[in-house]
């Protein structure tokens, strides 16, 4: 497998964590209370930690003096391969947690498969990440149950979020050309095979939360091809501001 293919494959995984981490970081200091504020930013920190490992590896593979910062901050919108789900805005706490829950369930399944990769670095990142993401999933699942089976207001709000975000879940299982190449060479995960387990797990939690699984059969897609929703440009403006304004700055 060519390095360029591996790099593209890494974007397909890491961009989700990058964009979701960025969304969560917007809540720093704005969480509904101190504990959830800290929890969400802790999850964000875990995700940023993971992407640093992915992008350091991708930068090394690219071999042309690029750094992790170049990859994270200096691509144009169409070059980001994250799914539409993770770029959706922080409408309210229930919405944030539903988005998180929908991603966490997928993320854990993905890493559990990625740890079997023939690529040693990806295996190591996955094994490390599993420990963290198990915790994320526990946190978001608990909140879905608490909000869904909570007051009339919280139930209503989280059901609304489930109904709205459901259309973005199917894209998680779409195989891109880069995915296919990566699967064939043994380094990648066939995400289409995670679908059944995903909806089973999600269904169990929603049921326990007394929430209704949407019946919609229409799903939105595009993120994996770099065709993003209207929210993405604003998110990138925030994400990239420092590197664009002060090129090559380091934290």
């Amino acid at each position, binding site marked *: 497998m060519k390095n360029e293919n591996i790099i593209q494959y890494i974007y397909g995984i890491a961009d989700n964590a990058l964009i979701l981490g960025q969304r969560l970081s917007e809540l720093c200091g704005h969480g509904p209370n*101190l*504990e*959830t504020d*800290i*929890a969400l930013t*802790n*999850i964000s*920190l*875990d*995700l*940023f*930690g*993971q992407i*640093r*490992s992915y992008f350091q590896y991708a930068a090394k593979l690219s071999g042309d003096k690029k750094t992790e910062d170049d990859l994270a901050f200096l691509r144009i919108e169409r070059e980001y391969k994250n799914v539409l789900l993770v770029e959706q805005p922080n409408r309210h706490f229930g919405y944030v947690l539903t988005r998180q829950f929908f991603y966490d369930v997928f993320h854990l399944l993905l890493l559990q498969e990625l740890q079997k990769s023939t690529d*040693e*670095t990806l*295996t*190591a*990142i996955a*094994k*490390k*990440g599993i*420990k*963290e993401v198990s*915790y994320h999933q*526990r*946190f978001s699942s*608990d909140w879905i149950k608490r909000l869904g089976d909570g007051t009339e207001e919280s139930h209503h709000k989280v059901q609304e979020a489930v109904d709205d975000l459901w259309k973005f879940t199917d894209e998680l299982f779409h195989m891109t050309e880069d995915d296919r190449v990566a699967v064939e060479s043994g380094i990648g995960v066939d995400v289409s095979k995670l679908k059944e387990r995903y909806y089973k797990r999600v269904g169990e939690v929603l049921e326990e939360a007394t929430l209704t699984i949407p019946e919609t059969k229409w799903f939105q897609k595009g993120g994996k091809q770099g065709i993003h929703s209207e929210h993405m440009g604003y998110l990138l403006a925030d994400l990239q501001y420092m590197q664009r304004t002060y090129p090559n700055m380091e934290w």
Partner: protein
Amino acid sequence: MTIELEQHINPKLISILEKISDPEIPVLSIMDMGVVRYAQIVDDVAQIKITPTYSGCPAMDVIGDDIIAAFKDKDIKAEVDLILSPAWTTDWITPRGRKALEEYGIAAPLDEEADKEALLGNKKIVKCPQCGSIHTKMVSQFGSTACKALFQCEDCLEPFDYFKCLK
């Protein structure tokens, strides 16, 4: 784990490494934390490999710099590498490290099963590091750093950090 550590860590370097602490938990040396995975002198350069507790642990950069500075004080050039595999686990915290945590006011990690029960709020088993009571409750699964959860003692009412089990 001890056997593996002895193989990879040159005993002569331990005295230097032991003086470096985790910047977020100053009572805990990086040796007691179990983050140093390899330390050998190769061609007059100290080659040190450390592994992060959590992927995004911001302490790792500081620890790396501290290691280089500590060796420089001894006129030894050091190079620090970050390794991810095998992934860090709380089992690598030494008994001395666990004791230091408790004395500092952080409850040391329980084993995996007990940890799950504690964090799900099923059982009251996390001991308050202040008064020793087990009448404690979880306030938040996430605490002041990624590796800790926030608890409160229902007897002495003091809030405290619990170091989460990571396996």
